């Protein structure tokens, strides 16, 4: 069964799991938030001129 009683080692086990959970959640949240932010900005700029967006794509591909 689920064992949550870490006995005398609770002071080591729970911080290890808590820090891991917090860092992984922050990593995921940051990646998703950045993706949402930049995609929204691209959509906004492309709405002002789709032909220029295509030109920008080509420019990025050529400079790399």
């Amino acid at each position, binding site marked *: *069964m689920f064992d949550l009683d870490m006995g005398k080692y609770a002071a080591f086990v729970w911080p*290890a799991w808590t820090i891991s959970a917090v860092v992984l959640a922050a990593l995921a949240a940051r990646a998703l938030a950045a993706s949402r932010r930049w995609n929204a900005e691209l959509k906004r700029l492309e709405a002002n001129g789709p032909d220029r967006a295509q030109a920008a794509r080509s420019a990025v591909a050529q400079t790399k």
Partner: protein
Amino acid sequence: MFGLANPDRFLRFTRPLTPVAWGVAVVLLAIGVWLSFTAPEDYQQGDTVRIMFVHVPAASLGLMAYGALGVSSFFALVFRHPLADAAARAAALPGAAFTALALITGSLWGKPMWGAWWAWGDARLMSVLILFLFYIGYMALRASIDDETKAARAAAVLGLVGLINLPIVKFSVDWWNTLHQPASLLRMGGPSMSEVFLAPLLTMMAAYAALFLAVWLTSIRTEIVRRRVLTLRARKALEA
């Protein structure tokens, strides 16, 4: 594979793959947590064995992410593939986070088992600390140079140099005397661990790998979009 170096093709290819990676990561993490807290305590280590289920996956992914960063840096430097630099850059932060977690959880495991939070001079501990410093150096170098092309090239050189440290981390437990236990998973003759601990450990390793893949793919996609936004802004400024 080189066909995917085209940003448009990469975006199309990873569009369905990225949510799948996120889904697999969440499901595997849930199963891994369940298995980790239903496993019996170890007869020698007691409940501290549960730290292993977050420590070992973090350490493995810290190494693998640097492998991804180093190989991407090589392609960025030598072949100048459009995506390679984005891939290297996107691997740095998750890699640093996993390595930091390996150091912190290792310290929390070390205190009750070795009687010490840290041992200066220990080969495994020091080589992992150096790995973390390579990540920090990579990100700091990129941030310190305004010209993105120059920053990418300088960071790629540093990324490549850091690859030397990977076999040192892996084999440090064999080459030198260390407090750290020798390899118990990737070793001749198969894993030396009991099945009751192997199942949660391998599940958590798969979960961490899926999470890294999800974060990495999302970040590479974001980097492509960010560069397009910057190009569009620059064009707009020129036209104005």
